[in-house]
């Protein structure tokens, strides 16, 4: 999977920690210290209770495929990167996170156990979390 010229995230003050942690090999989720919600994508206020007492928490990086779709054609996307498996991975901590499963599409099903890996981009300060099958 090559990333150039694929899009890279727009890093904001609210999300910078998430992306820089990925460059250190950590997948972070947000955890509300008041209501206990563990959530993704990162937001400064808890989306359930609006608490500002929200901490970063390192996720195990493991989960299973909640759903997926394999794009066979996509205009504006490098042919070398197709087919591309788009997925929601349900993390062990709970949240469903949109990502790619970087694997042969035939190895991906709903329920497939997956683990996080991180892909470098031109900006060495950040990296992109993707998932691969655990037994692959």
């Amino acid at each position, binding site marked *: 999977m090559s990333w150039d010229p694929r899009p890279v995230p727009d890093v*904001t003050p609210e999300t910078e920690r998430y992306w820089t942690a990925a460059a250190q090999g950590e997948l972070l989720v947000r955890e509300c210290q008041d209501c206990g919600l563990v959530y993704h994508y990162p937001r400064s206020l808890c989306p359930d209770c609006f608490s500002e007492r929200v901490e970063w928490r390192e996720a195990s990086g493991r989960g299973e495929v909640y759903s*997926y779709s394999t794009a066979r054609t996509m*205009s504006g996307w490098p042919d070398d990167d197709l087919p591309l498996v*788009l997925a929601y991975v349900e993390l062990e901590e709970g949240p469903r996170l949109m990502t790619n499963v970087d694997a042969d599409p035939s190895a991906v099903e709903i329920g497939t156990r997956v683990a996080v890996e991180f892909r470098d981009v031109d900006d060495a300060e950040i990296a992109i979390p993707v998932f691969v099958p655990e037994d692959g």
Partner: protein
Amino acid sequence: MAGTEPVYIAGAFEHPTREAPDKSTMQLHAEVAKGALEDATLEKGDVDGFFTAGVPEYESGLPPLIMADYLGLEPSYADTTDFGGSSYVSHVGHAASAIRDGRCDVALVTLAGRPRSHGQATGSGARDLRTVQDSFERIYGATNVSMYGMAAQRHMHEHGTTSEQLAEIRAAASHHAQYNEHAMYREPVTVEDVVESRVVADPLHLLDCCVISDGGGALVVVSEDVRSNLDRECVELLGFGESIGHHDAGRIDLTKTAADRSGSRAFAEAGLGPEDVDYASIYDSFTITVLEAIEDLGFCEKGEGGSFVEGGTLRAPDGDLPFNTDGGGLCSNHPANRGGMTKVIEAVRQLRNEANPEVQVDADVALAHGTGGSIGTRHGAATVVLGREDR
């Protein structure tokens, strides 16, 4: 408590074009506005409420200001609610509220766009990351079709829905499109044709996807006072509901849409239920969009949409729930990638006996439902229940 003063749709116009390389989007807005006002037997000078959503080609500008300027409107009430393709169903409901509040009497709703002339292809990936959500979604190559593909995949997993059942939705739409001289694809297709078409994003095939078309449409919503002076059959707005469904902090359920909330509200306001609906326009960006909406609107139980659509249920004129008799977004028209407008227009045609004769339904009550944005991330849902005046 919602106001109860009757509100009517007096004018409805769908632009006949499906590809307009030589026209501006604003020109299309003006042409559909003119068409809908003529249909309502009203004049431009009668308009005192203006409703429109984003104008895709002019995102950097201020769409409502640009459009009011171009159209020469000085409204006493304006609303630019933008929920993507469902916006125009919402606008009908919002216009009714404004009319009942006495803020306007003649509300003009317009839509236009030209994605076909811009060369947009099915399965296009967005390159432009404008929101924080894009950074967590679009960077992975999420496209509309792959996000709806994930919804279809999960629905199949949980409920045993099949590609053939989804294909029946396209086949029924194509059965209707053959009678629509303006439809982009008039050739009837079979379930086999759909499942044998190339896969764009598993499990959705090319023929599970809507058309990409230029064009537009407009509606004129009026007060009872205005209606009483018109010598034109109108359609009464009986109920309206809207909601937003989203990623829910990571708890997204891809098998459900916010149509359960918008639909139940619309039915409650109308004092009616799904069993009272004689004709339904249901947003059809993809076949799965229709299937999930049918369940969420209460036409069948969650998970039974696949078996519900089998056996000709959706086919006019004799099916139990004739749908999208213009051919819908799947076969006829999906102007500006926003199909809510044409959903309302075909429901109005049905209630006025102005549908194509081969698919005209004997309908007293019709429903139009829009699903805007993406059920794979976040979407608007808007439902109107409409009635024939002499029902």
